[in-house]
């Protein structure tokens, strides 16, 4: 959270430290929320008025106005976050962009998807995260066997709070809804991110055919149950599961 030029009563600042609700209201009161908008499908434009956003290192392509770039060691999560990221291998090189004007971000002509978070948690691979609002908190969680099947390791990045985030996908991503009656099964290589109150499990369709080398190439899947959204890209990463 960034202090604006406006006067802030002390009680409001103190209340802002607590719950997410008050914090958001306070931020709205100070008008320092960065505006994320898409310019085409591959460029993210962020309008800033003195506030900050976190973005992938080196992803700025152009800006006007005044901007300062600072690398955040350990994803800007403090010493604990830094150690966790080192240990889990879910390393993220993030920079903090602060200033006034418009800043454009892009990464290797990948498609960009905007996600608006209202208190819920977004799970995304650190390599697929392009930018987050300065007020959002990032962290790491354990994903278990699912992470390994995606070829991305056992841990994933979480984004939490109120604000916008931009995620990258190889080709335009589709957003699929998961409802209690309708579980969703996704190929690990095509999974990009998910948000909401979703439980995930790993399911395998390994039969004797797979063992004979006659598998359909869809031996492993991730099953999502609960209530939320899953982002799926029209392309598959190279995974162990894709070969069998």
């Amino acid at each position, binding site marked *: 959270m960034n202090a604006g030029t406006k006067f802030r009563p002390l009680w409001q600042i103190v209340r802002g430290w607590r719950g997410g609700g008050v914090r958001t209201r306070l931020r709205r009161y100070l008008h320092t929320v960065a505006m994320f908008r898409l*310019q*085409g*499908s*591959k*460029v993210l434009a962020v309008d800033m008025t003195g506030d900050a956003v976190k973005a992938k*290192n*080196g*992803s*700025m*392509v*152009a*800006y*006007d*106005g005044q*901007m300062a*770039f*600072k*690398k955040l*060691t350990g994803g800007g999560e403090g010493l604990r976050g830094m150690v966790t990221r080192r240990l889990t291998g879910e390393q993220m*090189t993030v*920079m903090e962009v602060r200033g006034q*004007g418009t800043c*454009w971000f*892009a*990464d*290797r*002509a990948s498609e960009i998807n905007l996600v608006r978070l209202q208190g819920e948690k977004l799970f995304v691979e650190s390599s697929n995260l392009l930018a987050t609002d300065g007020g959002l908190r990032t962290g790491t969680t354990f994903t278990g066997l699912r992470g390994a099947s995606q070829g991305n390791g056992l841990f994933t990045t979480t984004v939490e709070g109120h604000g916008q985030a931009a995620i990258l996908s190889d080709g335009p991503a589709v957003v699929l809804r998961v409802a209690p009656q309708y579980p969703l099964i996704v190929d690990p290589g095509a999974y990009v991110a998910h948000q909401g109150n979703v439980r995930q499990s790993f399911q395998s369709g390994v039969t004797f055919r797979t063992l004979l080398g006659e598998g359909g190439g869809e031996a492993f899947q991730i099953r999502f149950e609960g209530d939320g959204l899953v982002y799926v890209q029209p392309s598959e990463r190279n995974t162990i599961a894709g070969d069998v």
Partner: protein
Amino acid sequence: MTLREINSKMVEATVVPGQRLFSQRGAMLAYKGEVSFTPNIQGGQGGLMSMIGRRVAGEATPLMTVEGSGTVFFGHGGHHVQVINLSGDTLYVEADRLLAFEGTLQQGTMFMGSQGGVMGMVRGQVTGQGLFTTTLKGHGAVAVMAHGGVFEVPITPQRPVHVDPQAYVAHHGDVRNKLSTALGWRDMVGRGSGEAFQLELSGNGAVYVQASEEKL
């Protein structure tokens, strides 16, 4: 308008007798009508001296002259294509990014050192443009290639624009550019934000930026 984008990666050019068109050699995809393609040994316009100049400058991309009457489709390497219409001002672009341009435009080569002396030369090295860049001047249309989509950022005297040198494609108008460095102690110890060098463009005009940090 002679050049027209038919999708993000292809342009359609209308050729009429008496009007020449230059294009990168081998970039023709299809054509209708009576059109001839002659390899241009000189690599563009101007006389023998211009040709030598381009050879020396390393700005000599193989070009061909397109003449006749009909329609020609151009595209190259699956790169995104952007058509830029010039009305009297000068476009600065790397020669290998040129897909096609009208014969009414005047082609030239500019020495980077002529804009800002030694710093101009350093800038050319950092942006990968080399010591020379191609200029196109006059009235007409140019098709420029880029990796990913291209977007245009207007430059006004009050609002200078900073561009990542690797994402820079072209610029036109009355624009001064200089290389601004934001090198700090963080970069020295390998903790840089990856945005140490920026191309600062100020004046009046527009800059074209691609959605990627990759070269062609």
